[in-house]
């Protein structure tokens, strides 16, 4: 009980920006609080009742005063709005080159997995100075991933992916909380974010996982029976996947949509929702039969073969380099037609 911190540490590029805005609001709030308290105090003493028979002269009001004390606070508040909106946009818009890490919330733990395969529970290791994008899903209820030292938080919502990003600035260990009430052990759903020097992080990454997320995903691709139909090479009853991720898909109803994380997810869980032009709605749903973790690995696999306009089987077989998956969506114009057969064979397993 000998600790009494009064202000959280600043450990991301966002921390100081949020704090500066916080100080601005505090300055405005302090000004009005002090002004009103002084008026109350002075009036309370000066105009205390001395003679019970004295009836003060009523003052009906003043439009000039009313206008002043409406417009001036509104102006100060509009600065808060603009500044806050800009910051919010930045907080929720990951840079293109961000390194992607996957997060799954479940009652009551955080599971994280790096593209190269390392898995952690209630821990997250990240390098200093590099933008990190977290793609997050939940196995059950709503959770919220919160790192106070980074001044960043995002809800993880069932049935969809949410994302957040940060660039850590100071090596160290920082608290990780679940901020959205999620049941019995909500307060036990906490952990640590470890920020490391880039060299240390590389060392840490290289010790551990035997296969990358994309490799695991490729195995799942067979296990769940996806491969029997979605062959990557022969167009059959189902559209092949090579080059799909990040491309624009033509649907049977005429819409054109971008094949992103949400689209891939929906196509697995609710395949009838969007049918690619030229195919029949024959795929069964995988809702309730596939865990969020496996879903993310399948996504990683589909991403990994979607990012190369020309298949490069060797690269995938040897495990994608760290940071390749999810780093940048493939350029849209460079993607292949999903219906066009590709030439080379599937990567060996």
């Amino acid at each position, binding site marked *: *009980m000998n600790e*009494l911190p009064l202000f*959280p540490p600043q450990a991301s590029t966002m921390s100081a*920006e949020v704090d500066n805005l916080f100080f601005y*609001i505090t300055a*405005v*709030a302090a000004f*009005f609080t002090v002004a*009103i308290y002084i*008026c*109350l105090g002075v*009036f*309370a003493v000066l*105009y205390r*009742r001395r003679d019970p028979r*004295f*009836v*003060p*002269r*009523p*003052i009906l*009001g003043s439009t000039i*005063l009313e206008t002043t*004390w*409406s417009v001036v*606070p*509104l102006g100060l*508040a509009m600065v*808060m*709005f603009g*500044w*806050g909106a800009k*910051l*919010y*946009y*930045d907080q*929720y*818009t990951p840079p293109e080159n961000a390194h992607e890490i996957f997060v799954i919330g479940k*009652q009551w733990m955080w599971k994280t997995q790096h593209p190269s395969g390392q898995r952690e529970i209630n821990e997250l290791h990240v390098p200093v100075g590099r933008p990190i994008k977290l793609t997050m899903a939940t196995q*059950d*209820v*709503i959770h*919220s991933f*919160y790192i106070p*030292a980074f001044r*960043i*938080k995002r809800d993880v*919502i*069932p*049935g969809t992916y*949410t994302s957040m990003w940060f660039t850590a600035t100071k090596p160290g260990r920082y*608290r990780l*909380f679940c*901020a*959205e*009430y999620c*049941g*019995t052990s909500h*307060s036990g759903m906490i952990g640590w974010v470890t920020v490391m020097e880039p060299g240390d992080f590389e060392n840490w990454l290289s010790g551990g996982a035997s296969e990358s997320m994309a490799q695991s995903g490729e195995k799942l691709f067979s296990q769940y029976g996806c491969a029997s139909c979605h062959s990557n090479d022969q167009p059959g009853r189902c559209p092949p996947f090579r080059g799909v991720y990040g491309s624009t898909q033509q649907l049977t109803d005429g819409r054109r949509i971008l094949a992103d994380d949400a689209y891939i997810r929906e196509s697995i869980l609710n395949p009838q929702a969007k049918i690619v032009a030229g195919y029949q709605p024959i795929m069964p749903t995988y*809702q309730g039969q596939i865990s969020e973790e496996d879903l993310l690995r399948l996504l990683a696999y589909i991403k990994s073969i979607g990012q190369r306009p020309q298949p490069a089987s060797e690269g995938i077989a040897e495990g994608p380099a760290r940071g390749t998956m999810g780093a940048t969506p493939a350029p849209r114009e460079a993607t292949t037609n999903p219906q066009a057969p590709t030439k080379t064979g599937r990567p060996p397993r």
Partner: protein
Amino acid sequence: MRIASQPTYAEKVPINYLNAEHGLKSWLLTVDHKRIAILYLLSVTAFFLVGGLFALLIRLELLTPQGDLVRSDVYNRLFTMHGIVMIFFFLIPSIPAVLGNFIIPIMLGARDLAFPKLNLLSWYLYMIGGILTLYAVLAGGVGTGWTFYTPYSTVYSNSHVMVTAIGVFITGFSSILTGLNFIVTTHTMRAPGLTWSRMPLFMWSLYATSLIQVLGTPVLAIAILLVGIERLWGVGIFNPALGGDPVLFQHLFWFYSHPAVYIMVLPAFGVISELIQNFSKKRIFGYKFVAGASVAIAVYGFLVWGHHMFTTTQSVYAGMIFSFLSFFIAIPSAIKVFNWTATLYQGSISYQTPMLYAIGFIGLFVIGGLTGLYLATMGVDIHVHDTYFVVAHFHFIMVGGSVLAYLGGIHYWWPKISGKMYPDGWGRFSALVVFVGFNLTFLPQFILGYLGMPRRYHAYPEEFWVLNVFSTAGASILGVGYFLPLVYLIWSWFYGPEAPANPWQARGLEWQVPSPPPTTNFPAPPLVTQETYEYSLEEAEVV
């Protein structure tokens, strides 16, 4: 204010609404608005004690970082039930159903509300909802948070969710009927000469509150019905596994529950406007702005619900619109504070108990309101959302604001309600204790929140310990502050000296009938020929 009635009515007829009839039946089947107000007073006080007991256990658990007093499931049920009981069964009905019920018809110069039987029905609905909720508590409680967020509440929680939800659903109708009754009463029952621009500010704020109750509460009922439909028939509305959207629930919930904040605080504004004027003997500065601000808040209150959802999947641009509108609602609240302060200027201020509560209210509401700016500012809200910063903010509004105003109002109208005077020294002491205890409880929570301590945590990291000890210490002082009025007000009911008709030398029709008032309020409909707050008139001239 001048009324055309027999001035000596009070002396001639000592029969009043309390002694006109006797027996339990005369209370349970009464259609007298004053007796129904007493029924509400007893029941909201009981619920306040229940909710306060939960708060006490919560603060005791948080005295140490480890979760060692109760199990986490119990803790989760404690804060859930604390929220549900305090919001739906204390704060929402407190000022409107107790003080409003008692005072509104008299303030307007009317015999009763427009629909006296509907008024009694409101109380019964409230009690049925309350008893269902208490049954859920005794059966094991509900642990979803008062927000009932899906899919936790619909799929994962094994507590008594549906019973509680039905309790809240039924109580909602009580709120709707009370609102409807007040709106019709305000439109049709005003005494001759009591024009809209002469109406007491308490009436304006309750009128605005009633609009929200009638328009907003049905949406909560719809949300609860949809949860029931999903649970019973498996229709995918909120559950993504069935094709629903959990964030849709949050939209529906906050569409009611943000305006519900104004249901709780607008009546408080009305009480404070009355107290500030009567204890400074000065007409409000800027009557039209203060009255208009109430209506503006009622309207704007419906447009800002998305600011509870900045961290969800709500689009960034939708969030910006909600943030923008949220700053606008700060202005009418600020106008009220400035006008109350300006009213004191050159006044003749006396410091009896109600006025101390009123000044305490302004002091706390200023902090509560200004800390709302941090939450409306999206970039900062991302950090403090769902932390103790939010807990501190809304307790400043709802406890520092609404509860202090309710206590101030109870102390102000107590002589009228009970016909007895309470010891003013004890009253002033209680106001001081409440103010000190409140600040010690909730100021440290702002720091905790910015440090990042999430709300609804049963156990917490050690670095948050010291501030939590302050908070628990403050809560025990606050508890004493609440206990004092309970004791001396009950004492005064039986043993207090008789109250005169107008102990505060106040204006307003309610001070021109005897204390306690006769069942019929006025012997003949009064005629209003002056503004409500004409303190310059001699007392003798008025009655």
